[in-house]
């Protein structure tokens, strides 16, 4: 008996230790960025253009660039991802070809982001002649996000019990009516969660936008989606490693990192709020 209890204690302790380690890394990481970047976080920093070779002034073009690119990404990835998932889960025959397609989509989510970047250069920048622009970068990120959106949306659809579909069909609904009125409304919060997590990840990517539209430094705001742009993650990369005066750029790099984190966490919280609201409505 004693040995069993000891083994139990040892097992639990190991699991707890693993959790604590993960938490510790996260806390140290956040604390470091907040401590070093917090001082930078002024109204001027987020509302002004960069000055003096990006050693002074703000990062407004980078914030705006990231937001605009993410909007383009969302416009591609959300509808296409959701529609693909609906087709795969609700309409496609669950046979050989569908399985291969699904496997291919899962595999695409494992392709390194730099490869998407190169593909974006070939397809959007050169072939479709969108040039290096917000449009090209956003579409590239959209392609990269699609596998996530599709997979997350499909998982959300799978959680809806079949009895909702059959109950609806038995009342004389068409398949699309059953899906639209009795499946999608309940799957949407889950679909949205997965999608926005994918978008948040895309917003923080550097490699895919490096060749497709992000600029080293552009001390003005973009006028159209065919313009080049600054983006927070790329700006951070430059400030941290490529700048000619790294010592002077360092605090601004931390400030940029903090803004990027806030933006991404903000997106995730919005989704969390939407999800709880949906859930309350469903249970009410």
């Amino acid at each position, binding site marked *: 008996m004693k040995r069993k209890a000891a083994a139990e204690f040892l097992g639990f302790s190991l699991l707890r230790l693993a959790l604590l380690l993960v938490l510790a890394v996260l806390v140290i990481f956040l604390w470091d960025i907040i401590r070093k970047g917090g001082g930078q976080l002024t109204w001027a920093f987020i509302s002004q253009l960069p000055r003096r070779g990006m050693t002074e002034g703000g990062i407004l073009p980078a914030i705006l660039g990231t937001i605009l690119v993410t909007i383009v990404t969302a416009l591609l990835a959300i509808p296409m991802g959701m529609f693909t998932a609906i087709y795969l889960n609700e309409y496609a025959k669950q046979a050989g070809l569908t399985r291969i397609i699904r496997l291919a989509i899962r595999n695409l989510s494992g392709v390194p982001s730099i490869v998407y970047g190169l593909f974006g250069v070939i397809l959007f920048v050169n072939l479709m002649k969108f040039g290096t622009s917000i449009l090209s970068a956003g579409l590239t990120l959209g392609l990269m996000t699609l596998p996530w959106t599709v997979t997350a949306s499909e998982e959300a659809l799978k959680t809806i019990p079949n009895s909702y579909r059959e109950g609806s069909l*038995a*009342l*004389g609904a068409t398949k699309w009516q059953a899906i639209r009125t009795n499946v999608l409304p309940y799957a949407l919060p889950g679909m949205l969660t997965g999608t926005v997590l994918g978008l948040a990840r895309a917003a923080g990517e550097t490699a895919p936008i490096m060749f497709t539209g992000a600029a080293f430094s552009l001390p003005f705001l973009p006028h159209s989606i065919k313009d080049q742009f600054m983006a927070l993650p790329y700006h951070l990369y430059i400030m941290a490693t490529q700048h000619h005066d790294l010592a002077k750029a360092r605090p601004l790099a931390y400030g940029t990192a903090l803004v990027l984190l806030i933006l991404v966490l903000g997106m995730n919280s919005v989704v969390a709020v939407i999800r709880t609201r949906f859930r309350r409505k469903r249970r009410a």
Partner: protein
Amino acid sequence: MTAANPKMETRGLNFYYESKPALKAIDIACAANRVTAIIGPSGCGKSTFIRTLNRMNDVVPGTRVEGTILLDGKNIRDPGVDVVDFRRRIGMVFQKPNPFPKSIFDNVAYGLRINGHQSKARVEEVVERTLREAALWDEVKDRLDDNAFTLSGGQQQRLCIARALAVEPEVILFDEPCSAIDPIATAKIEDLIHKLKQRYTVVIVTHNMQQAARVSDFTAFLMLGELVEFGPTEKIFTTPASKTTEDYITGRFG
């Protein structure tokens, strides 16, 4: 044994899961305004049978149907038949109550709305009428906006019956409607089935032989996908023609 006035009828109905036969040459005629019960041990194909009657098995991958299913003498498996339209004419109440995560009112109104009835007055009238028909109105009239999940299991099943009635079906299929609810709620649903046959043709699958004896006019006994015996309930339960039927209804197996 054929009913004088069949509302719904199967002829030589075969059904396969992948290549495994689940129903073999089933001929059953369901008389209009009568209750036809399908009984048999677990896995005999009774649920499969009732789900072919509104072509619900169409949506299950890997299945195949052969034979004729007649509704008012017309084969519902003909290529030209609009499956959506005829499913509206055949209501179904499932084994486990399956209210939708909506208000009580919206559950009953659901079928009307998808069939294009939007007029508020008409929807309200039908919701009240069918909830009364399903003997649920008095229990829910003050809480129509509550979520249907707040109802008890028996109430949920009566809600599903009201929901099925709202689209004015001609036939109502019950797939073991009482297997997930308590005896008192079961008695209420059996009462209801008695009343429903005045206006509808009823087919009920049940694993409970007493229930079949209580509610049905005709009984079909299935075993291993084959129709062993079909006839007036009284005859099946008093003087069955087949030894197997007798053994089953006297509780020697099953």
